[in-house]
C-alpha cells in the first residue's frame, strides 16, 4: 500500500509542480502583455515640449500703397424717404462735400470741406453753386467739377443721403464726436452741449446740418462735416481694435447705405488701410471762402487762399 501510495505520488507532485509553473507563466505572460500593450513613452520628446523649436514672433500688416488716394464724399439732399426727401440720391443737390486726400504711403491726409454754396465753374453748365453739379449730371459731373476746380484727380466718390447717414451711424452703434460748441439749432434739430459725445444717427445728421445758428454759418457746418468723417474713422478704428471682425460689419453697413464707384477689393483694402491711419494725422480744412451774391442768390466765393491750398495738396503737402 505504502509503495503503492509512494508509487502513486510522483505523478501528482509533477502535476502540482507543472500547475504551479503554468500559473507562474500565466502571471508572467499577463504582466508581459500589459507591458507590451501599455502606452509607450515616445523616443522623441514630442509629449514633453523638450525643445524650443521656434521663438515667439508677432507681426501685422495692412495693404501698402505708394500713392495718393482722393475720395469725394457727398451728402445728397434727396433719396431720403424717412426725412420726406424723395427723388434720386444721385440727382439731388450735394449738400455735404468733402474731399478726402490720403497719402497712403505716409499714412496722413487732409479732409477739405467745401461750402455747398461755393460758386464755381461747372463743365457744360457755366458757373453755379457747386452743389448743383450733381443735380445737373449726377456724381460724374460733380467729380468733373471738382477735378477742374482743384486740379486733383479724384479716384472715387462715395454718396449717401440723410437716411443713409443716420442709418449708418445707428448700425455701427453711434460715433464719438468732440462737439466743439454748444448747439441750439432748432432748424437742424441740433441740441448738443460742447464736449466729447457719442452721437446717434439723428444727432450726427443734426450736427452735420446745423448752420443757421452757428457763428461761422456754412463754414462751421463744413468743418463739422469733416469732423464727423474723422470721428467715424476713429470709431471704426476703436471697434476694429476690439474686434477685427467689425471690418465686415462696417463694410456691410457701407454697402447698404452708400453708393460708390470704389470696386469692392479696393474698398476692403482701403478699409484695412484705414485701421492704421490715425484721425489725428488728418487735417480738417474748411476751404476758405467769403459770402457773396450772384444772380440774386447768396453764394460763397472761394478765396485765393483756397487755390493756394489746392496747389499745396497737389504738391503732396498735406501738413
Amino acid at each position: 500500500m505504502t509503495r503503492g501510495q509512494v508509487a502513486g505520488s510522483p505523478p501528482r507532485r509533477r502535476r502540482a509542480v507543472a500547475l504551479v509553473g503554468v500559473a507562474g507563466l500565466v502571471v508572467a505572460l499577463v504582466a508581459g502583455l500589459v507591458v507590451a500593450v501599455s502606452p509607450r513613452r515616445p523616443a522623441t520628446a514630442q509629449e514633453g515640449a523638450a525643445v524650443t523649436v521656434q521663438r515667439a514672433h508677432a507681426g501685422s500688416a495692412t495693404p501698402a500703397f505708394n500713392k495718393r488716394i482722393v475720395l469725394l464724399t457727398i451728402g445728397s439732399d434727396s433719396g431720403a424717404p424717412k426725412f420726406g426727401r424723395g427723388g434720386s440720391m444721385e440727382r439731388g443737390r450735394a449738400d455735404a462735400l468733402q474731399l478726402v486726400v490720403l497719402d497712403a504711403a505716409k499714412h496722413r491726409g487732409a479732409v477739405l470741406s467745401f461750402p455747398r454754396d461755393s460758386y464755381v465753374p461747372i463743365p457744360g453748365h457755366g458757373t453755379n453753386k457747386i452743389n448743383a453739379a450733381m443735380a445737373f449730371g449726377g456724381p460724374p459731373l460733380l467729380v468733373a467739377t471738382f477735378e477742374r476746380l482743384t486740379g486733383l484727380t479724384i479716384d472715387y466718390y462715395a454718396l449717401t443721403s440723410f437716411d443713409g447717414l443716420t442709418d449708418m451711424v445707428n448700425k455701427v452703434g453711434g460715433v464719438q464726436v468732440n462737439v466743439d460748441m454748444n448747439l441750439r439749432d432748432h432748424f437742424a434739430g441740433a441740441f448738443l452741449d460742447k464736449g466729447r459725445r457719442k452721437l446717434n444717427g439723428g444727432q450726427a445728421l443734426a450736427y452735420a446740418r446745423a448752420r443757421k445758428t452757428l457763428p461761422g454759418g456754412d463754414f462751421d457746418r463744413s468743418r463739422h462735416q469733416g469732423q464727423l468723417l474723422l470721428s467715424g474713422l476713429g470709431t471704426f478704428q476703436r471697434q476694429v481694435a476690439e474686434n477685427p471682425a467689425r471690418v465686415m460689419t462696417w463694410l456691410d453697413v457701407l454697402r447698404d447705405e452708400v453708393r460708390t464707384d470704389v470696386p469692392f477689393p479696393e474698398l476692403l483694402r482701403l478699409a484695412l488701410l484705414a485701421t492704421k491711419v490715425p484721425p489725428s494725422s488728418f487735417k480738417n480744412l474748411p476751404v476758405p471762402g467769403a459770402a457773396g451774391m450772384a444772380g440774386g442768390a447768396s453764394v460763397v466765393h472761394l478765396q485765393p487762399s483756397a487755390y493756394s491750398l489746392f496747389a499745396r495738396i497737389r504738391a503732396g503737402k498735406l501738413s
Partner: protein
Amino acid sequence: MIVPARSNPGRRPAVVAGLLAALLLTALVAGCTSGGRSGSGGQATGSTAAPAAPAAPLEVQVAATARVPPGELSAKQAAKQAAPGLEKFLDRYLTEAYVDAAGGDGNWSGLLGLFDTPVRASARKQLDALSLGAAAADVSAVRPSRASARAVVLYGPQRPEAATVRLAFDATADTAQGSGQVHLRSVLQLLATGEGWRIAAFDSRTGPPK
C-alpha cells in the same frame, strides 16, 4: 499507437507551459523593446533615430457666420456655403506655412502667393510671425494636433466677398535635437477673388505656448 494529448494528463501541463513560455518571451521582448524606447524618450535631447508618431492629417475646423445683403441667401445658408472654401484655403495656408515647410529650402513662394499683392512684401518680411519661418530649416516634420478657425464672412450677390478669420494652429515639430510644440494665432482679413481667397491683412503671432 496514437494517443490523444488529453489522454495523457502527465504531458499536458508541459505542452501548455511551453506554448505560454513562447508567448511570454514574445511579450517580454515586445515589452522590453518598448521600455527601451521609453528610457531614451525621457531625455530632452531624444534621438531622431526613433520613428515619430504618424502625423494626423491636417484638418481645419471652420465655424463660420455670415453677413448677407438684403434679399439674398439667408445668413445661415451663406455661412454654410462659404465654409468649405475657407477650410480649403486655410488648409493650404497651414500646409505651406508649416507641414510642407519643414526641412524646406526657404522658398516661401507658395505661401506668399496666398497674400494679396499690397500686403505681400510685408508678409515676406514677417514670415517668422506667419509660419515656421527661419525655424523651418531645422525641422524635419510637423505633426498637426489642432487647427481651428472662426470666420465672419461678408457675402455679396451670391458669393462671398471678404472674411475675417481667427485661426488657431498647434502642432509638434521634430528636429535633430528633439521635438517641441509650435503654435500660430492669427487674425486674417481675407479678400475673395475669382481664384479663391487672398490674405489682405494680418495680425499674427507664432512660437511656443505661453
